[in-house]
């Protein structure tokens, strides 16, 4: 088991390295560097000025070398003045006074770099944004999981009944409506002057200062409904399968009430499969969150990704991709371990 986990962690580090290198390559293509120079030094600067700016700020080094700087295995370089003092470069970004700048400032030193868009260290941006997205995802999960399991169990305990048909239709409808459709419909219905209900707000910007029922319901529901249908369908399938098992029939013949059969005998076995699916929702939610945050103007992790991409904010995009790799692989690991714990027939390692 320990060996299995260590192996997975190694894979995680390797994936993060590969992923960050790919992102690094893409963000450091010449046109993207030019875009960066123009967002930093003025949209209308000349090519000569772009080249000067890149040179001065240490973007003109070979790409592999700069990847090494980002990792922290190579000392950062940049333009120097006659006295050999650094004028710019990785270690000076965001530090107004160049005197105490270290020579190494990469991930290994715990320095995630400087966000050129948000004008502050990346670590701070990511931490704050992850916290906000965590709040959004937390509420979404709190709504999604109980609802999905309830729907799945209710639909699956009597396969083919009217209740099953109704709930299945509902969950298929929510799964097949992407967030950018359902979100817009919700805003139009429940938050706009057009319809005039105005129960909630169609903008979650004020949720940064405090989550209320009023400003957070729509984004949470938009995220939750999309993921809910899938979990509900999986739960239903699993439940329906369990309900046909021999021991359920035995329990019924023994004279147990249907309710007792479902709650005591069926549920435990039926919930093993959805557990994995719920874990898989984490990485999917990460992508959904990008859309929902853009739609509801909620400055979270997804918004950081969008802003970073729009402004070619290299360090920020790298950090975002590393976080994404960790989230995906960590949830997979958890789901494998959890599955093994729940299902005695499965052995990892």
């Amino acid at each position, binding site marked *: 088991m320990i060996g299995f986990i260590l192996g997975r962690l190694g894979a995680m580090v390797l994936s993060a390295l590969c992923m960050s290198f790919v992102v690094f390559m893409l963000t450091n293509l010449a046109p993207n560097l030019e875009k960066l120079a123009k967002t930093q030094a003025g949209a209308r600067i000349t090519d000569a000025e772009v080249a000067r700016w890149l040179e001065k700020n240490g973007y003109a080094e070979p790409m592999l070398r700069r990847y090494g700087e980002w990792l922290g295995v190579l000392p950062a370089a940049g333009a120097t003045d006659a006295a050999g003092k650094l004028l710019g470069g990785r270690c000076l970004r965001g530090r107004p006074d160049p005197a105490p700048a270290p020579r190494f400032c990469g991930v290994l030193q715990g320095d995630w770099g400087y966000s050129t*868009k948000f004008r502050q260290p990346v670590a701070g941006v990511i931490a704050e944004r992850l916290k906000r997205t965590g709040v959004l995802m937390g509420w979404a999960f709190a709504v999604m999981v109980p609802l999905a399991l309830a729907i799945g169990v209710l639909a699956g305990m009597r396969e083919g009944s009217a209740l099953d048909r109704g709930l299945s239709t509902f969950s298929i409808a929510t799964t097949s409506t992407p967030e950018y459709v359902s979100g817009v419909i919700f805003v139009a219905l429940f938050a706009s002057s057009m319809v005039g209900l105005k129960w909630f707000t169609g*903008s979650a*910007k004020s949720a*940064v200062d405090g989550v209320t029922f009023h400003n957070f319901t729509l984004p949470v529901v938009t995220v939750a409904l999309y993921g809910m249908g899938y979990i509900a369908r999986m739960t239903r399938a699993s439940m329906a399968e369990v309900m046909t098992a021999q021991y359920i029939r035995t329990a019924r013949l023994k004279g147990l009430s249907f309710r007792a059969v479902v709650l005591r005998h069926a549920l435990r076995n039926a919930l093993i499969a959805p557990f994995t699916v719920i874990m898989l929702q984490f990485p999917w939610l990460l992508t959904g969150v990008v859309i929902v945050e853009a739609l509801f103007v909620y400055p979270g992790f997804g918004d950081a990704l969008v802003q970073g991409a729009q402004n070619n904010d290299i360090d920020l995009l790298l950090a975002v991709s590393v976080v994404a790799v960790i989230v995906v692989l960590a949830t997979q690991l958890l789901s494998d371990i959890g599955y093994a714990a729940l299902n005695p027939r499965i052995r990892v390692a």
Partner: protein
Amino acid sequence: MTTPSDRPDRPHPAAELYAREYRAGLMDRREFLGRATALGLSAGAAYGLIGRPAPARAQPAPRRGGTLRIQMDCRELSDPRTYDWSEKANESRGIVEYLAELKRDGTLRPMLLESWQANGDATEYTLKLRPGVTWNTGEAFTAEDVAANLAGWCDSSVEGNSMPSRMAAMVENGQAAEGAIEIVDDLTVRLHLLRPDGTLMFGMTDYPAAVMHRDRIGTSVADHGIGTGAYMFEEFSVGERIVLVRNPEHSYWGDGAWLDRIEFLDYGTDPAAWLAGADAGEFDMTYETVSDFIDIFTALGWVESTVGTSSTVVIRANQEAEIEGIRPYADPRVRRALALAVDNAVPLELGISGRGRESRNNFHVAPGVHPDYAEIAPHRQDIPEALRLMREAGMMEYEHELISIDDDYRKNTTDAVAAQLRDAGFKVRRTVLPGSTFWNDWTRYPFSSTNWSHRETGIQMLNLAYRSTAAWNETGFRNADFDALLDQATAIADDTARREVMARLEQMMVDEGVAIIPYFRSLYRHAREGVLNAGMHPKYEINVHHLGWA
């Protein structure tokens, strides 16, 4: 030597000349006011010259106190000279101010200056500083500061500094010319220009011309917060929220600064998100309301304000662009054919729903807005002639790639032009680039559209975009005769004569087929009932010192 500043009671001779022309019906009132105030007259004195009372302030002064929340992109701040977005100046205007400001009606109002005077041929300007202005460090604001800023504005060696083009009459070898900036005393600066320039003061009101402390030239206000304004940053989160609060340590020179707190809130670029925020009651005023959302915001009960401007979309060929070894747009017949194939009323209707004014012809001077606009023959769509020219140039089979940014009105306007070109029988392929990459090469696209913001005079526009040496020359139009005429027109002269030169410049742009300039836009802004002094400004300016609640 007597300079006009020795006789401050006497108005500038040219202003009297303008007044005569106004009375003779040669120019309208707006134009007269713009020109007279640029020479150093107060708006009141200018009205006096033409024998009209100055209009009373239509609005009462706002009450003291309160918070105002404004929807606007929250961008990072750099050295003000390199500002490339009006939003940046709006963020910093509560802290670093300007020598003078352009009012919504096109007149200039002195701010950190008390007054200015130009001599008879606009080669010498005397700037009088407003006494009693201090920096929020407690130091006095002096002529040293003004001179240092002027020198900085002339410094072409700074990456992205767009001020030298506005100060061109003082620039020599990329720096302020020797002796151009003279400090007369603590409160007086005299400028000696290399050549006449009647538009210099307009340049000083433009958004990159924020006046920094003399020791802080080249820095970002966000780093130190030193300025003359009444406010300070309380929070500065790029892409999210920027909060200004009254600076308790500082005594502000002006009588404005009504509000205690101003919040700029970033809602991204999607107007639907702005509407959601307005519907949620999260802000009180938009930066700019666009397209169909103008009517929607008005329907919400918000107060609409609008202003006619010289903002436009220029659909231009680049004469120097090379595609696979040929220069498709080097031939004026090709460019002329493109312009003749377009009925300018169509892009106005389809591009901006008619919210603007059709241009007179395809030149970059706006009727009814620019004081130096000269009437020349109007543009008429003429498809047979367009076809004849294109055939003559042997370019009928050529497929034109028309590039635009992926954004509502610019895309729609360009689409409308492309459709008309196709209707005329030309081959056109449309390419739409996202905003994040569009600006990378915007001056070099062979055939593309660019949005241009308002400038106060036509001559500024032409100098900025069509002079052969201009940094923002995107047409590849480099013509010595045109430049010579520009020099002539930039120097102030008798109005009829200047109009004459302008007419020739305009006609040259048309004949050379420099660009398709279909319309000039009106701009819109919305605010809640009770927000004062928030009217839309032709240059998107928001001066937080003026804003307040009724």
